[in-house]
């Protein structure tokens, strides 16, 4: 079952107030650069239970949903 994994994020704050995530820092030290934000809108994660701004991101050619549930960021993670 997927779990709600809170992650460290490096983000850019735009002048208009938008927040654009740039990198996800995994707990084992790996750094995932976000190649592109494909979509951003309020959304829910029914899989792990959460609600916030959902960023659909392309990371290493995979689509990943990154959620900003103020004040924390989380992803739907497979690992424990």
């Amino acid at each position: 079952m997927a779990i709600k994994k809170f992650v460290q994020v490096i983000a850019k704050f735009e002048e208009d107030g938008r927040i654009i995530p740039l990198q996800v820092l995994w707990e084992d030290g790996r750094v995932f650069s976000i190649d592109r934000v494909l979509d951003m809108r309020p959304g829910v994660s029914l899989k792990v239970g959460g609600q916030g701004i959902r960023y659909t991101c392309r990371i290493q050619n995979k689509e990943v949903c990154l959620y900003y549930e103020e004040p924390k960021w989380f992803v739907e993670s497979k690992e424990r």
Partner: protein
Amino acid sequence: MERIILHSDINSFYANVECLYHPEIRDFPVAVGGNPEKRHGIILAKNQKAKVAGVKTGEALWQAREKCPGLLVMPPNYQLYLRFSRLARKIYNRYSDQVEPFGLDEAWLDVTASSRIHGSGRTIAEKISQAIQEELGITVSIGVSWNKIFAKFGSDYRKPDAITVITRDNFKKIVWSQEIGDLLYVGSATKKKLMKYGIYTIGQLAQTSPDFLVLQFGKMGMVLWRFANGLDDSPVKAFDEHYNGNERILKSIGNSITTPRDLKDLKDVKLILYMLTESVAMRLRETGCYCLTVAIHVRNKELHSFTRQTKLAKPSDLTREIAEAAIALFEKNYDFSSDIRSLGVRVTDLVPDSTPIQLDVFGNEALRMRQAQLDDTVDDLRKRFGNLVLRRAVTIGDSMSGLDPKKDHVIHPIGYF
């Protein structure tokens, strides 16, 4: 132009938010309940599965568990519900600036002016329903009509996740055939009285002579008759986000509490009344008002309750005067024939604190002014260091003294008028 009013009601609000945040419990009967140890052990909300099992809002947790043995009871998380309520309101605001919340989970919207941009009432309702489901993961029931009463009726008519449109063509079929208790502001007492006169359905009420209703129910009779006929023309009040309340014009300020243990004597009662008054008076001062009337609410452990109110000699916002009035009111009206479970203090007849006050020869106005200064100082200290930084001596040394009604205060649905 005919108005288009929507009433949106979030289905099983608390329970569904809990289910959203706890995927593992989603497929079980779930209820949100208070803490039985603090004696708040009642059902606040339940999901569809629990509803089917017969669990009712407001009943004790043990009663609910008897009906539904596998019931999962979650503790309430008001901060989360407030957040969802705010997010839902933001979605409503996309379609209208006239949004009037009715408690945390309900709201009226007047979308008359935006129908040219966003489409008919039903279309807007569909858009809202979809947005709430996608962005918040919960569902709503929406009623669409030309007045607030029928819109509310529509949102109750079919749930969950449904849209009911009540038009001038179909309201007789939909609304009038329903029993009288489904109409807003027909509670159990009014219902009983109406049934005595052979009025069982909303249609029958609508066709009763308004004169007769006024004779029986006073001015409420006319109001109910208008409600039943779809003649209600009350506007949807715009909501000011920066104002901490559901209503722009304050009518009363009150706090009540179900105490962790039964109150057995006047000492206990005084403690609680002081504590409640502290919060009420502070909120009164924050709003810049004086009150003219103080009311108390008492409920004993048999769950019988009553309210009493009294006029103050002068408009006041002094904690001491309000508390003393509340205590005097209590002493006059209760004899401790049974222990007390819940107490409330409320102030009404609010006037701006710039209102001139008639002085009298024997009153000590200098003392009142010093009291006011003291209250201001206390307020200031509490603002800076927390509500429990300064306390009345009566509240010290009791297990109940840590209660903070001001901080724990949550806004609940207000009356329609």
